[in-house]
């Protein structure tokens, strides 16, 4: 434990992961392949892609990773990606905080 030289503070690691995730979802996602994914491709080739029915949330404001009302393609997809990343961070992080074992007593970290 004390063998480490100088530890990168947890806060930096957290900020680093968040920034990378936001950049990937907000910027890099624009350059992602638009080809169907493995399952969709196989479904098309094998002949059961037609059995897919309309998605119940297909008319939602963020459906198919496009923000409705935003015309610029790059912006629309990027914004949807950023919103999704933040929503997942809040929901998953919140859930984890609820589930975690609390440190006994009131030992505040900061």
């Amino acid at each position, binding site marked *: 434990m004390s063998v480490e030289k100088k530890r990168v503070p947890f806060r930096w690691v957290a900020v680093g992961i968040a920034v990378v995730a936001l950049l990937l979802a907000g910027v890099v996602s624009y350059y992602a392949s638009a080809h169907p994914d*493995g399952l969709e491709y196989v479904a098309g080739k094998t002949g059961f892609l037609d059995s897919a029915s309309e998605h119940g949330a297909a008319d939602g404001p963020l459906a198919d990773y496009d923000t409705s009302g935003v015309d610029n393609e790059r912006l629309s997809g990027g914004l949807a990606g950023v919103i999704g990343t933040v929503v997942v961070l809040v929901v998953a992080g919140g859930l984890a905080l609820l589930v975690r074992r609390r440190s006994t007593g009131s030992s505040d970290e900061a």
Partner: protein
Amino acid sequence: MHVPDGFLDAPTSIATGAVAVVAVGVALRGARRELDDKTAPLAGLVAAFVFATQMLNFPVGAGTSGHLMGGALAAVLVGPWTGVLCVSVVLIVQSLLFADGGITALGTNILLMAVTTVLVGWLVSRVLIKVLPKRVGLVAPAAAIGAFLSVPAAASVFTALYAVGGTADISLTTLATAMLGWHTVIGLGEGAITFLAVGAILSVRPDLVYAARGVIAERDLVIKPKESVA
């Protein structure tokens, strides 16, 4: 591999839904042992990273693409139970907000991408870490191999589900061959991304990587007596 509504019949979807509810319920209990004040925020960040990376479809040739599933990655970074929860949250948000993955297929998608990939990714990487020499540098390769295998495993589970409750009359042999073939290639991408992500965290804070905990503890035990001699 997000399954849309309609691929599987209602009984199969209800069955996978029930399995998913039980799996998430068990994971909620199990995650308690993995999560503390520091790893809880990390779990949120890992889920956000998995969501972002799932948007990045990479080409795998012949007009097909693949993307990270992230079960192995999440399990290695924050623990298997928490990993199931992380990927499940990603899948629920994708389905409800982005119309990605059918709502009636949510149970199926959780079973495929949260449960199967975590299970296979975690078990394979854990066995490798146990068997291989206890070196931090071997944790990322072990995670990558687990991640690689988790993708064809999920494809196999989909094929099995389709054999039970597929709505179209197709050749199951053709389906199995195509699913396994393509997803073995996609698995290489899964392994590469997992290797890079786990390697990056290991290089700055190995103590934050759940699967590396045993390795670090044993390494400390080796180092200390040497220091007391010198």
